[in-house]
């Protein structure tokens, strides 16, 4: 039991330390993709392991142009992301996009959309982990 608690504590420490690196990754590698857009003030970056999947609910206002940038640290396989409505209707996937990390779109009306992010499982013997960041920006 003690070992388990120690493991969790160690894991928490490692996670916090590694998450701190996500801020630098976001600033240096992700934000340059938002040039021309005003960055949303929420911070969404965390450590993902291969096979992890996450979903983020976002509200986008009608009449605005947005850019969504989803990036994973190069240590991870190429991140997959999809945009769906709240009925799980698929609206966009980066699988067929030329730019796998950036999605530009316009909202004709205000709506909540789900952004589903997945780090593929490489089926290797080692499970890799690295930062994944989701940022949104709007045109001013």
């Amino acid at each position, binding site marked *: 039991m003690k070992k388990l608690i120690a493991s969790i504590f160690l894991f928490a420490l490692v996670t916090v330390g590694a998450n701190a690196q996500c801020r630098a990754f976001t600033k240096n590698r992700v934000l340059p993709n938002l040039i021309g857009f*005003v960055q949303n*003030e929420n911070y969404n970056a965390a450590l993902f*392991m291969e096979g*992890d999947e996450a*979903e*983020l609910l976002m509200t986008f206002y*009608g009449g*605005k142009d947005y850019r969504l940038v989803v990036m994973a640290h190069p240590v991870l396989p190429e991140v997959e992301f999809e945009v769906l409505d709240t009925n799980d209707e698929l609206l966009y996937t980066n699988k067929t996009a030329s730019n796998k990390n950036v999605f530009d779109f316009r909202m004709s*009306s205000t709506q909540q959309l789900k952004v589903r992010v997945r780090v593929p499982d490489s089926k290797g013997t080692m499970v890799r982990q690295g930062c994944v960041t989701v940022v949104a920006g709007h045109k*001013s």
Partner: protein
Amino acid sequence: MVGLVGFAAVQFTSCSGCQQAKTEQPSMDAKKDSMDQARVEQLKKIFFNIPSPVEMASLIKDQGYTYEKKMLNAVENVDKYMGEVQQAVNLGIYGADLSYASIFDQKQESMTYFAAAKKLASAMAIDGGINDSTITKLAEYQDNRDSVLKIVTGAYADLNGYLKENNRIEVSALVISGGWLEALHLCLQYAEKPNSDLIRQRIGEQKMVLESLLKYYESFNNKPALAEMKADLLEIQKELNKVEITAGKTTVSKAKDGVMTIGNGSKATVKDDTLKALNVLVKKIRSKYVA
């Protein structure tokens, strides 16, 4: 079990590692599951998003309204704020005021509000985004509104990241709530003016935004620091629940300029008495924090 689903924030499941642990080291399985659970809980608090106050300020400007300093929280109040909750909420409030001043290209006001925000951030020992070097940068680029906006929103995003990475996620939630509250307050003031249909619509749409914010609060399991704000937000939700939002099926099309366009034709209808009640309520709640 690669799985998913979460709302408001996020839900994670991790898996490839578990499979390996199961087959090679069964005794590790429980540890892995516990660690996954801890990670899931932590990540739920990190992944969260609502529109920034700057988007509301931008709408006000786009509608042709003028800048009104009297609507903002006076920077002279900054020294009054004691205690982490009041400081965090006002850090968010000043952030929204700063966005509003920046959108209206109020150079001196933007600098003053940034300095007030910096004072609060320092008092709260927050070392992210809002610091002396950002103030210098802001002064350097003050004649370029787009650069100012980029600096301001970048500083608040970095502050948000700093708080999340340093296990002060509740503080981050309060800053975001303060910003949302102030942006709503500003919109409510303009909603009383003529030709404010789009502003009223945007106020009504806050029903969706607040729903996300409150779901985010649920991930904190009734943390005492968030109790007062949560109760206030629930009060506001009671009023916003009177807003009727209609929407159709989501459509995706390509605009003439090639940009993908998404929409479901949603429309929020806010009745006059709901708007009035909301204004009174938000004023009451806001004045409690800024007083």
